[in-house]
């Protein structure tokens, strides 16, 4: 009998231990907030203040729902900070990138406005209507696009790394992609399901 009980506690322990790894999920809501903070800073007045949509359920929900009791125990065991990780966007590298992007936005702004460039589905920018750009400015714009995309990719990677989860890079990029589009000013172009839309 004693053997059985100790076996049960052992499996419970194992189960809990395995749950801990599951519990480190991507903090969607925090990421959205972080993204909005950066976007509002970079775009300034161009950012339409759209409240973040309620985050989609994190990938581990299936397990959660199946074992709500376990998760409750777990939340009690694990400190809240771990269960609800925050996204920190305060690092010299992130600040540098943010400042560069903010400075660049002054040059990019007229191109967003004229429809020359638009937002992509993966959190970058691309050429939308070349004809809206004077020939002599074409290469300036190409350079701005390349630099902006380089900085954006670096930003997504750095946020993931700075928060100790390099593997979150894709999630962060995806969150930003949504938030850039939500925050975009009226008249700006963005890609959705492979086709161009105008806000």
């Amino acid at each position, binding site marked *: 009998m004693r053997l059985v009980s100790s076996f049960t506690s052992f499996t419970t322990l194992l189960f809990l231990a395995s749950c801990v790894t599951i519990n480190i999920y991507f903090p969607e809501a925090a990421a959205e907030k972080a993204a909005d903070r950066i976007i509002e800073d970079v775009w300034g007045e161009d950012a339409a203040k759209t409240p973040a949509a309620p985050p989609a359920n994190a990938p581990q929900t299936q397990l959660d729902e199946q074992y709500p009791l376990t998760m409750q125990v777990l939340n009690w065991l694990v400190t809240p900070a771990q269960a609800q990780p925050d996204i*920190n966007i305060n*690092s010299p590298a992130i600040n540098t990138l943010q400042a560069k992007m903010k400075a660049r936005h002054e040059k990019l702004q007229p191109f967003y406005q004229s429809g020359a460039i638009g937002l992509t589905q993966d959190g970058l920018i691309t050429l939308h*209507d*070349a004809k809206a750009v004077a*020939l002599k400015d074409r*290469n300036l714009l190409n350079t701005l696009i390349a630099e902006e995309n*380089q900085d954006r990719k670096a930003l997504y990677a750095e946020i993931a790394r*700075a928060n*100790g989860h390099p593997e979150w890079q894709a999630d962060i990029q995806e969150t930003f992609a949504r938030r850039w589009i939500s925050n975009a000013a009226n008249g700006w172009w963005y890609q959705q399901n492979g086709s161009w839309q105008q806000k």
Partner: protein
Amino acid sequence: MPVRNSQVIFATLFLLLVSFSVVAIESARLQIGSMYYADIDLSQLNISFSLDENGLAMQATAEKFTLVDQQLSNVALNCQQFKVAAKFWQCRQGQLKFTHAVLGQQQVTLSFAANTLTKDYQLEIAQLGLADGQLQLRVALQDQQWQSTINGQQLALSSLLTLLTKILPNRDLTMFNSWQPKGLVSGTVDLTGNGAQVLNTDIKLRSPDFSFSDDTGNRVAETLDLTLALTAQYQQDWQFQTQLALNNGQSYWAPVFLDFQQTPLQLAFRGEMQPDNAVWLLRDIKLEQQGVLLANADLQVQYKQLQQLKMTVAPSPLSAIYQWWIQPFSPGTAAANLTATGQIGGQLEWQKNQLQLQVYLQQLTIKDNDERFAIEGLDGEFAWTTTQNLMPVNLRWQNLAFGALPIGASNLQATVTDNQLTLTEALALPLLDGSLQIDDFNYRYASDGSHWQFEGLLKPVSMQALTNTLGWPQMDGKLSGMIPRVSYEDQQIDIDGALQVKVFDGTMIIKDLQLQSPFGSLPQLYGNIDMQQFDLELLTRTFDFGRISGRLDGNISGLRLSNWQPVQFDARFATAENNPGKRRISQRAVDNLSQIGGGASGLMSRSFLRFFEDFSYDKLGIRCQLNNEVCQMSGIEDDDQGYYIVKGGGLPPWVNVKGYTRRVDWPDLLARLQAVKNSDGPIIE
């Protein structure tokens, strides 16, 4: 087309006129309800002749005149100077009026002459209003030989294309329409031929404002001032000679932007077209972009695919070549933002999957405007090939710099073959008072990007020179290292082996170095550092930290620098386990340490301990785990409230320094260190 049509016109007119013999004395009139001949359909034809003091005059009207699907209505021809003989007809300066669905109402000057005996025919039409301009057409036909001249003045290309689309509804003009040509064109097209074969073409066109654009707007020209001369002769194949001059306007052919006002362009070539195998040969191509480059080339195209290209570029100013031809291809790369001067020339041979390139460099200076690298006084020849041929590379430079690190004059000898460059001699890069020797350097270009690797030997560089150059606190000692392998792949440089720094009478080993996206937005440097037997006295003197004696060991693991700023590491420093040495700590150092620990500042100055100059200690140490801008601090030993940074021992007086703050804001800590460095010493109350 004009050939057949004019033949038909003549034949018809003559048959028509010849078949009715004219026997009038002063005037005669013919009326025909309708008639058909070949492709010609006439209805309500009226012809009248009259004879006056000027000679014979002819007037003809027709309600409808259809010629090869083109219908003219209200046709009226008035020929005041009409000559007619048995086999000879002539009308000079006749006036022809007609209405055409597309051309509208027209009044043109028409002259013609026909000799059915010698089969000699001539036709001239002038003042034909077309596409907002005027067209003049002259055709002469003798037997099968013909000659035609079309002269257009101020024809609007867009209107012309609209006209053509309407006149030739069955012809596919999508190719022209998709380029949306615009502008006014004037010029002459001379054609001669035999039967259906055109034998000679001589085209001279000029437009002051020629523009075109494709659908995407990525291949565009705006208001080009264009002069084109093209002559072509047919002898089995087509031989042609072309000269093109662009003197104004701009073009963008993604990603190349050219401004022809700043850099007028002349292009000339002769060539051959073999219709049977769809081969175009262009020879003696001479391209001159004023102030930028002068190139000579030959090329071959088959089935619209480039088959072969040989090109020589005369020594040209790199600044202009970079601006117009290199920079547009480089956004987002290390070459995106350079200042480049000097002369560059070379030659290129290309045929399917085979490239051979030689570039001659004269006194080049290339500087990254973001100051990441620079090279000065670069001379020599560079080569590249995708073939198995062996080509030499020989480069010399006066100065080279990576960031603040200066590298002296060097000479690089290498060979290139099959997309690879290999050093033939070790490359010695003078670095301050030492040097970096590079062996077995190999650069390879593959579809997945660039790869390179080398073995390195860093001959001792004095830390004094290095720290001065980098603007760090001056240190004594030497930096050296054996680097078995440095490799680059996929935006990442890995450095195997270790760099050894002999400094503070101890040793620092830097290893596991990895640099990601060195020229990207945020270069990432990773590494691990071990430190042994640092003499604290030398170290504290260097950093002006008060005075501590004794020996220190340490390690920094999991170090990450983002954009050259430390953002992550786990650093521990502690009194050496072996040979800790004589351990004394000055009052000022104690105070500084306690400040850094975030607690117990001024502890000693408040106590009687302030009367002592220095103290002995048993062990000291500090650990900082930096993550997310927060340094998690600890010392050598914990107690209930805090952690010991210095634990006293040995002969009294001795002192303990304790830290209380566990989580320290990293910028705050840096500020504290800076404050310590700048402070004059403890204030002793």
